[in-house]
């Protein structure tokens, strides 16, 4: 794994609207290439970086990403929900092999920099008018267009399986995405893997909003009372199934 430095712009996440006010041409949806953001033009902004080694090449990263994902664009040049899974795997694998760690990825401004400077077009293609600005910026890091992809892959990666990304690429309901990025349960790997595997294996009945909400809530409550990750693998599995039956 090569180590790289990931660039960002310091102090920007709190005050991006001073540099890119909401009525700026930058947000123009009709023409995403119209105005690009160049941090160098703003003397008030200072660039910084995290990590060691050479500078990470965002440009190549973006181009390779779009080669991979851009082909799924529909006739309106939009990327639909289902592309998230592949995008998550691509982003996670690529960045991991370039030295991205959980600590670096927990920085808002890394993602803000990536979105504003390089991934503008992707965010526009994926999120369209309604959520564009929210997804570009990091007022809510969990919902940032790129950070959420990385986090989802990080939290659904099953290191012990022959294909570690078999859960990441599975077309889970978006409710699973929300639970993964918004609740702390997903940080508890043994439980999370079992819960996701259950939903995956019983997709017909389990991969819907209603079930997922009830099921994952119960898992969370159960884990408060009984530390599920003290259980052996098959016991844990039994317990998860018995929770699912209750739903």
């Amino acid at each position: 794994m090569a180590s790289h430095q990931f660039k960002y712009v310091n102090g920007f996440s709190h005050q991006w609207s001073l540099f890119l006010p909401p009525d700026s041409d930058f947000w123009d949806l009709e023409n995403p290439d119209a105005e690009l953001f160049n941090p160098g033009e703003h003397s008030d902004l200072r660039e910084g970086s995290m990590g060691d080694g050479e500078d990470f090449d965002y440009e190549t990263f973006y181009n390779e990403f779009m080669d991979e994902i851009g082909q799924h664009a529909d006739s309106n040049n939009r990327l639909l929900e289902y592309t998230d899974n592949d995008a998550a795997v691509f982003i996670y694998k690529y960045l991991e092999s370039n030295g991205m760690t959980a600590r670096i990825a927990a920085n808002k401004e890394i993602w803000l920099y990536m979105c504003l400077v390089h991934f503008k077009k992707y965010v526009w293609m994926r999120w369209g008018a309604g959520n564009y600005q929210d997804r570009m910026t990091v007022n809510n890091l969990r919902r940032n267009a790129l950070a959420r992809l990385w986090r989802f892959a990080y939290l659904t990666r099953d290191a012990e399986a022959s294909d570690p990304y078999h859960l990441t690429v599975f077309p889970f309901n978006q409710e699973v995405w929300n639970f993964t990025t918004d609740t702390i349960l997903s940080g508890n790997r043994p439980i999370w893997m079992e819960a996701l595997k259950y939903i995956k294996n019983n997709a017909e009945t389990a991969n819907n909003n209603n079930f997922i909400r009830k099921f994952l809530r119960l898992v969370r409550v159960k884990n408060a009372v009984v530390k599920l990750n003290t259980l052996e693998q098959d016991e844990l599995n039994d317990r998860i199934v018995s929770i699912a039956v209750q739903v």
Partner: protein
Amino acid sequence: MQWNEFIQTDHTYTDQEWPYRVGINQLSIKGELKLLRNNMPINQEPIEVSSAPGQARFSLNGNSDVFESIRMNLVVAFSEDIGAGYQLSELTDRPDTADVLIVYYSKAARYYNTFRKPLISGQAVFEKILVDRNEVFENVVVQAFLVLREDSGRESDTGALKKGSVISFSRDIEILTDAKHNLFSGGINQVTEEFSPQEKNALYKLDFDGETSEPYIIWNKKYEDVIRFLKQPKSSESAYYKLQHMMLSIISHEIMMQTLAGVAGAEENIEDLEDDFVEMKILNSSRKYIHLTSANIHNDIRGTMLQLEKCDSLTRMQHGLKLGQAFSQCINSSMEEAVNG
């Protein structure tokens, strides 16, 4: 991370009560941390940690941006004299099958790990728990649980006293690992709202933590009533907050005095400070909020505060003066910068 927090985040279960007897806070954690770089300790002196009430937050004494991993040696003990005060035999029919589970996690980076040891003669010893810096971001929280290794006789519908049931837990320990690169709280955020009428005498506004749930601190122009909390801390009784309050009074008093008098010879020290005080800028002429949130500032102050608990009043004052000087030098140099360019 305590059981009720899990439930509180989920509004459906807000009213749910613990379904069986639990020795709340009857576990205690004591131990030490060593910060490592290249597998070698940075400091010879370990940092002592403890889950005793009021001292659950521990600073890394200014090493928060140089360490590569933390090595923890922890002793977890079950005591009948603290917390809920149950005897172990009241909590389970099988006290010999109780295990201690150490859970540590880092919220921002979503990392979670656990270690388990049997409870022998009321305690369990955990050696060399290694926390990798690359996995954690922001504070690391450590908590101990007492769980059952096997099903106990008294089983109920709730699944209580089955294998894995929590029969006691400890307060959590928070290790403040914020680094210089902490972009959530680093640098200065200039908030553009006007001061509110109640705060019109305030000169500076500090967000000491960078976390919105933490108290904001008004740094008042009249230093007789220097500090005021905008939001009341969760436990205003806690020694930590009292100390913070006192400490800030000392610091801010000193800063005001130094700033008013002008600091001679500050220049030679500014270079040393620059590494710690990234992105300092003071503009107060337009009566706007100035929001200082340099991670290192609060780490250093916290570290000092923790040491201060054991100090006499003279030593406290000396620490306060030292920090006050550091602040005032930064503020002075930034003011010059603002005036000159």
